[in-house]
């Protein structure tokens, strides 16, 4: 019997149509659009100005707050301007626009494919390098990775969990990474283990990626302390708290971080970025993005420079199919519809999904029939139907008491609701209102 988390969860159709497509390098864009706020936390402060020449890997924006991250140029060329541009969030954000000219890398960056196995840096140096390289959680939440490694006093990390679950339907970028960069991934895991000073790591993978599990298990034999753990397919297993429950059977309390139960979770994409940063001195300037959708003639997994407009990805595969109604950044469950396809790939973009006209429309919602399905599938043990009502009557105090801030926005409740109620829309509104109230109380 395979392990999984106990509370709630759904199993949407997997639709991993791009799983067989190996990673291809996307051509450089003509212009790169690099937003300065790509991280969950404070936006970074630009260090370049109009007309400056930059090289690939050069630091162009510095993360000054505790929870923020450095941003490096992903292309070489001239800074065209710094302007507010509509990004994947649908709002205008400060963006550094670079006119691409050639592909000249900053000195000291190893761009070869040679695998370096020996970890020469010390624990503190590893954390410092990860911070300097601007690595953030590439699973989508974009939490700065170096903050995760700085274990607060009084807490102790016992186990490192590597998240190779990729429970989101359609997306295959992590899957391809595990297959094609297996060894690098395991070295990255070793580096993170050293950075955390733990001797145990678990790589959690859902068993719909049998080839990845097989390959990783075979290679991991040479790496002491790393276990590959196949998991039962269930959404949202890729959620940090769900994965901890599935892998080591511990529950993270409400409002606490995983370190509370001695665990640190990192995505496989992040782990690979850590390998590149520590062993090759390469900052986070590119990531793997899945381009997928049923109406596409050919799907793909691209290695894309950060800042490439999403329209470039589409163009390289015959452009936007005619019946496309929605372009989503991320997967179908948690992704966000883009308001423009000129929005750039950022550190948190795991995939680009096209939804055809006939599947894009919302079904008209009817009244709640009190079936309780949303309660039974909620992986955080919340009552989505109740939260929806509380937000509608604007009872923010009661909304907070019912743990609205615990919601991970996985969308399981909306997926399962037989009345097609827009539960998550209201819960999101509740989260933002309650968050506002909490912040104003702190001040």
């Amino acid at each position: 019997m395979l392990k999984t988390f106990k509370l709630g969860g759904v199993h949407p159709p997997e639709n991993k149509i791009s799983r067989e497509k190996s990673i291809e390098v996307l051509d450089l864009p003509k212009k790169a659009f690099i937003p300065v706020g790509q991280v969950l936390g404070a936006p970074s402060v630009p260090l370049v100005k109009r007309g400056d020449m930059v090289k690939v890997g050069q630091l162009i924006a510095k993360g000054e707050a505790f929870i923020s991250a450095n941003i490096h140029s992903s292309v070489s060329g001239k800074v065209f301007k710094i302007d507010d541009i509509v990004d994947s969030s649908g709002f205008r954000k400060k963006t550094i626009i670079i006119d691409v000219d050639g592909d000249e890398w900053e000195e000291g960056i190893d761009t070869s494919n040679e695998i370096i196995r020996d970890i020469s840096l010390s624990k503190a140096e590893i954390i410092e390098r990860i911070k300097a390289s601007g690595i953030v959680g590439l699973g989508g939440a974009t939490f700065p990775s170096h903050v995760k490694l700085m274990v607060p006093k009084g807490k102790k990390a016992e186990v490192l969990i590597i998240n190779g679950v990729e429970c989101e339907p359609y997306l295959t970028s992590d899957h391809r990474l595990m297959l094609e960069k297996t060894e690098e991934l395991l070295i990255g895991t070793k580096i993170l283990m050293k950075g955390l000073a733990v001797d145990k790591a678990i790589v959690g993978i859902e068993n719909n990626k049998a080839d990845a599990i097989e390959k990783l298990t075979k290679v991991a034999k040479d790496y002491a302390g790393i276990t590959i753990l196949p998991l039962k397919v269930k959404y949202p297993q890729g959620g940090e708290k769900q994965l901890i429950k599935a892998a080591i059977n511990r529950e993270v309390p409400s409002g606490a971080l995983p370190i509370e139960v001695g665990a640190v979770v990192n995505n496989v994409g992040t782990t690979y970025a850590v390998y590149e940063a520590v062993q090759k001195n390469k900052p986070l300037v590119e990531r793997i993005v899945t381009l997928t959708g049923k109406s596409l003639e050919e799907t793909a997994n691209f290695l894309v420079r950060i800042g490439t407009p999403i329209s470039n990805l589409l163009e390289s595969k015959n452009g936007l199919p005619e019946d496309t109604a929605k372009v989503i950044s991320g997967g179908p469950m948690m992704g966000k519809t883009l308001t423009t396809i000129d929005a750039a790939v950022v550190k948190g973009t795991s995939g680009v999904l096209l939804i055809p006209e006939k599947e894009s429309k919302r079904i008209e919602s009817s009244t709640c029939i009190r079936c309780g399905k949303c309660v039974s599938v909620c992986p955080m043990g919340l009552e989505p139907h109740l939260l929806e009502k509380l937000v509608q009557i604007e009872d923010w105090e009661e909304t907070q008491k019912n743990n609205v801030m615990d919601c991970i926005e996985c969308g399981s409740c909306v997926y399962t609701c037989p009345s097609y109620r827009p539960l998550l829309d209201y819960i999101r509104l509740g989260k933002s209102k309650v968050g506002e109230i909490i912040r104003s109380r702190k001040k």
Partner: protein
Amino acid sequence: MILYSIISLGVIGVISAIILFFVAKKFNVVEDPRIDEVEEVLPAANCGGCGYPGCRNFAEEIVKAESVSGFYCPVGGNDVMAEVGKVMGLEVTAQKPLIAVIRCNGTKKNSPQKSIYDGIESCAVAHNLFAGEGGCSYGCLGLGDCVDACDFDAIHMDPETGLPVVNDKCTACGACVEACPRDIIELRHIGPKAKRIFVSCVNKEKGAKAVKNCKVACIGCGKCEKVCDFDAITIENNLAYIDYEKCKLCRKCVTVCPTNAIWEINFPLKKVKVDKVKRVEAKVEKEKKSENKTDN
């Protein structure tokens, strides 16, 4: 037999009545009769526009304070406040009545649709998700939270423009101001003969960006500020604001505004200025004609 029952019940009744009489005396709550009287003259809308939860509480607070200064019922207006003053035996200074104005003119024509929103019909929800169908992150979302908030049937959505319209049923209770997540609606003086001038835009972006999304956005050029003789206009964060206390309704600012962002309401029609665009078009046509002539 029946006699005993009647007597015993009667005695119990009398004793209870005596007890109740003394208890009522002892715990008697003297309520100022003026509270009822004040409540009587209030409009009983219970809208909360005065800042108190309901008309009864408003009346209680007035009687408690023994003064009417600082109290104003926007629904009843000066007439009702004069009545309240009569009850209280106090002098009431008349206030200028207010009305809600919509400070956005991002109609479907002025701010063309760039994306389609198919989520729930609620501005609060949409405000959380994206900038808006026209792309302006300050402008009206057009989903009608203000209409839902209005208790007086004073605001409705114009399907043609996609913007809310306020009619003269508005009591300036402020419910729509609260409901709007983008703070577009403002309470202003109705003005003499309901004449009003205000900047119908709240976009704080720099001019070039603002007009990219909306043709009639305020670009903060400062022309109106310069032309104003009464210091009524201030520009902050690329946005002009007309102080209704200082504005003398001379309409100079309206004529100089290059983007037609300043609105004049209820002014005589004949003086309404020619639309800038039309003027330009007319010129172009004239030029064309003259070109044709020279060709011939």
